């Protein structure tokens, strides 16, 4: 094991499944006495009565605390160290975000409460909307989508509705071969054919190919900018022009917005519609896989198609609406809308957190954040490019993508290097993505890493490169320091066990 000083082994507690800790008669709750007459449930519900109780566990409170605390210690997290998962923007999740999202009056606001009693939360939503419109350089926005992929879905629905309003929905969506899997999946669920757009030698959009492929049947190009290689499409304006000349739209996947905030605005470089990931760029916690939030910002001409309802402000503040005594309203009467994409108004708890982040930063903080994110990625690139193959030499923005070409000669793959990083105290980078790089190592440090942590990461990666030369089997069998070693994924998929059952005890 390395002597790099980042980690030392420590013990973690064993813990079974919560069902295995259960025993009849143990309790973790106490309800207050009922202040109304009891009801004979069986008599009241008749055949709808549940005879057999659900097989939930029975534990005391201390056991519950220990159970979930023990499980938590088996996780790696941003709070423990660098989490350079490319494309996921694993930045610091400020604790004040969590605090304000739980404030009374916000956390307990029912979505159907009268608007006159909801002006506080509506003002929060309104301010966030205005900030995000300014940051993206777009004209209008919906916060309704629940995550990035849901935002993509919403955005492509807007594209389709707009084309339809002009008499032809068109048939296909162009998607670069470097795109996230959600892009083609989204196009397909919106009823579009997916046409692959091959990247050029620099990993960017091939303008000639684009010109050839865009036609009157093309609804839009779904573009990630910076691309999944972390490269800014420097001919972005030409891309937009080519599309617009044929009546097609430019959709931007905002997954990599952390490279742009405060430095350049998609609305200024020709993007018609885009989504943001509040859980990436705007610091809401990833939570082990959500909740996210995927606002969609767009240009004015797409506004009539936004999901219902849309937040509107009564003209001339101070002149309050007579009926509801409110300034901010949800507007439902939108005949051209694509409809709702979610019940209620979206993941409001995430809006509160994202706004807290924007307020904590201000314009100077947001710009500095972007600059630090790009600085960190370039620092890693500079310090690893002699040992790891850089398939595309184009300048990096917020992430850098290497390949395992040199290590593969020794039979070591990107997935092995990733597992070995765990032993050094880091979460792995994103493995084998984007698909245009064979054996990709996609590294996104974000702005949240100190120089010290970056240097430790670089040391670890350099040390692993050396191990690949000297003791490749050590890398191929990693990790060596975790509670469990590599898990048998084939067995998991062949005979899926997706729930605990008493007989399996």
């Amino acid at each position, binding site marked *: 094991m390395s002597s790099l000083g980042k980690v030392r082994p420590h013990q973690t507690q064993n813990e079974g499944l919560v069902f295995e800790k259960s025993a009849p008669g143990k309790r973790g709750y106490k309800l207050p006495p009922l202040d109304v007459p009891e009801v004979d449930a069986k008599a009241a519900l008749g055949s709808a009565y549940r005879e057999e109780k659900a097989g939930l566990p029975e534990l005391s409170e201390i056991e519950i605390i220990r159970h979930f605390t023990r499980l938590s210690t088996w996780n790696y997290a941003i709070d423990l160290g660098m989490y350079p998962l490319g494309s996921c923007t694993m930045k610091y999740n400020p604790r004040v975000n969590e605090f304000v999202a739980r404030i009374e009056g916000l956390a307990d606001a029912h979505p159907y409460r009268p608007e006159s009693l909801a002006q506080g939360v509506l003002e929060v939503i309104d301010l966030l909307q205005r900030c995000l419109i300014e940051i993206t350089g777009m004209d209008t926005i919906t916060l309704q989508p629940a995550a990035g*992929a849901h935002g993509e879905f919403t955005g492509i629905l807007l594209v389709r509705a707009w084309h339809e309003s002009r008499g032809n929905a068109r048939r296909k969506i162009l998607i670069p071969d470097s795109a996230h899997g959600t892009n083609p999946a989204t196009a397909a669920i919106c009823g579009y054919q997916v046409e692959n757009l091959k990247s050029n030698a620099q990993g960017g959009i091939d303008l000639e190919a684009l010109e050839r492929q865009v036609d009157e049947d093309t609804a839009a190009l779904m573009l990630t900018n910076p691309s999944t290689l972390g490269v800014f499409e420097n001919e972005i304006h030409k891309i937009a022009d080519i599309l617009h000349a044929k009546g097609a739209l430019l959709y931007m996947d905002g997954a990599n917005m952390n490279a742009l905030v405060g430095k350049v605005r998609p609305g200024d470089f020709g993007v018609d519609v885009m989504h943001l990931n509040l859980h990436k760029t705007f610091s809401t916690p990833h939570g082990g896989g959500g909740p996210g939030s995927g606002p969609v910002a767009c240009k004015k001409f797409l506004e009539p198609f936004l999901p*219902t309802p849309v937040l509107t402000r009564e003209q001339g503040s101070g002149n309050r609406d007579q009926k509801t005594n409110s300034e901010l309203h949800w507007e439902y009467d939108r005949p051209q809308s694509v409809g709702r994409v979610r019940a209620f108004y979206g993941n409001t708890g995430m809006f509160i957190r994202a706004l807290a982040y924007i307020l904590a930063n201000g314009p100077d903080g947001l710009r500095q954040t972007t600059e630090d994110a790009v600085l960190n990625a370039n620092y890693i690139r500079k310090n690893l490019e002699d040992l790891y193959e850089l398939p595309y030499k184009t300048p990096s923005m917020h992430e850098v993508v290497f390949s395992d070409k040199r290590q593969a000669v020794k039979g070591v793959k990107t997935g092995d290097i990733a597992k070995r990083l765990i032993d050094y105290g880091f979460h792995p980078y994103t493995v084998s993505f984007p698909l245009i790089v064979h054996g990709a190592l996609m590294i996104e440090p974000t702005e949240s890493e100190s120089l010290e942590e970056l240097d430790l990461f670089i040391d670890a990666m350099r040390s692993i490169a050396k191990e690949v030369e000297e003791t490749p089997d050590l890398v191929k069998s990693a990790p060596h320091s975790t509670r469990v070693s590599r*898990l048998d994924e084939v067995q998991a998929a062949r005979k899926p066990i997706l729930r605990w059952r008493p007989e399996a005890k």
Partner: protein
Amino acid sequence: MRYLPKSPAEREQMLKAIGAKAIDDLFSTIPAEYRLTRDLDVPRQQGESEIVSYFKAAGQKNATDYASFLGAGCYRHYRPVVIDALVQRGEFLTSYTPYQAEITQGTLQAIFEFQTMIAELTGMDVANASMYDGSTGAAEAVLMAMRVTSRQKAVVASTVHPEYREVLQTYLRYRDLPTAEIGYVPDSGRVDLKALEADVTEETAAVLVQSPNFFGVIEDIPAIAEIAHKKGALLIVSIAEAVSLGVVRPPVEADIVSMEAQSFGVALSYGGPFCGVIAAKEQYLRQMPGRLAGQTVDGNGNRGFVLTLSTREQHIRREKATSNICTNQALVALMATIFLTVYGKEGIRELAEHNLAKAAYAAKTLSAQPGAKLLFKDSPRFHEFVLQTQEPAAQWSQRLLDEKIVGGLDLGRWYPELKNATLWCATEVTARETIDHAAKVLAAAPVEA
């Protein structure tokens, strides 16, 4: 900026190492004409105390001291404090999708426990790791049924949450999937079985109902299932009030259950984040959307968990995936898992019985007021009920608001045939005195000539 861990000198040092003169050298690929040369027009940088004050003021402006009878897909239940204590552990809060199983066993085992609890509650064989919410989950369940049956038509009950139905229409917009809407029997508030029987054909992929339905009435699931299955259609049951399963018979005849788990310890939060989940019979597993955690072993035979069957998902299958869903609601699913562990086998029953009792008392008390009447009176209900008043809802609801009570939800917006009808909800946190108070205010209607 307090979240950024670098000194100016360190930034200089790093730039030098990279070989850049200034930070803007690293942004040189952005064409100059697009670079932002001014500050963003957003509020100035604020201290933590200012941020807290801003949101506290917003919370207060929202009016905090109102009692409420609102439900309709978003339910007030007590949230045990251990939930927030545990989900705010950084190891849960600040980790991501458990792609690297060796260092995310905590999240993976918790998902596996969640899947087990949901399967137990719903009477289904398997459940996924979560969906965005109940509305998108119901829409995805219909798409799943289309894939399973290779059929192209859906029949939807009008007693499914109106906003869920709107979301379904959005999801089906470009699918050429016609939907038929089935009404309810005016007396019972339950799905019109005769109409259903007439509309379900050999082309029907799925019948979607909700139980307890939007009126709080429990549907006759066995009868609906029989009608659907006779024609080879799948039955999807949407459950918006998950606590009901403590005392209401699970929809075991269903093929797919789409549930909103918000009631399990998740704050109202003005409508989200919530926690959808899809559960199903095992034979439909390969058509399920979303993530699944599965049990396996490591090289030393230790039990462990991994994300599995991912060949259904977008990162592998791209445009042929079962759904485009990627990030789901993992942390909210963890809240639900902790909630269900706190209440457990006996507690969830007791909790559901308290809800039943409160709502029964509220329904009886409120409908006893002059001019008020309980609709669908003889149908089995959980904790919501529909009250019809002679007086327009707008009038008495203003009187209630003056007394700091938010009354039932006006149904006219979605069901114009139900004149002056409102949907009320009472849960274990609704105090008897609030119910009595609301009844008094209701009764105080100005006497008409």
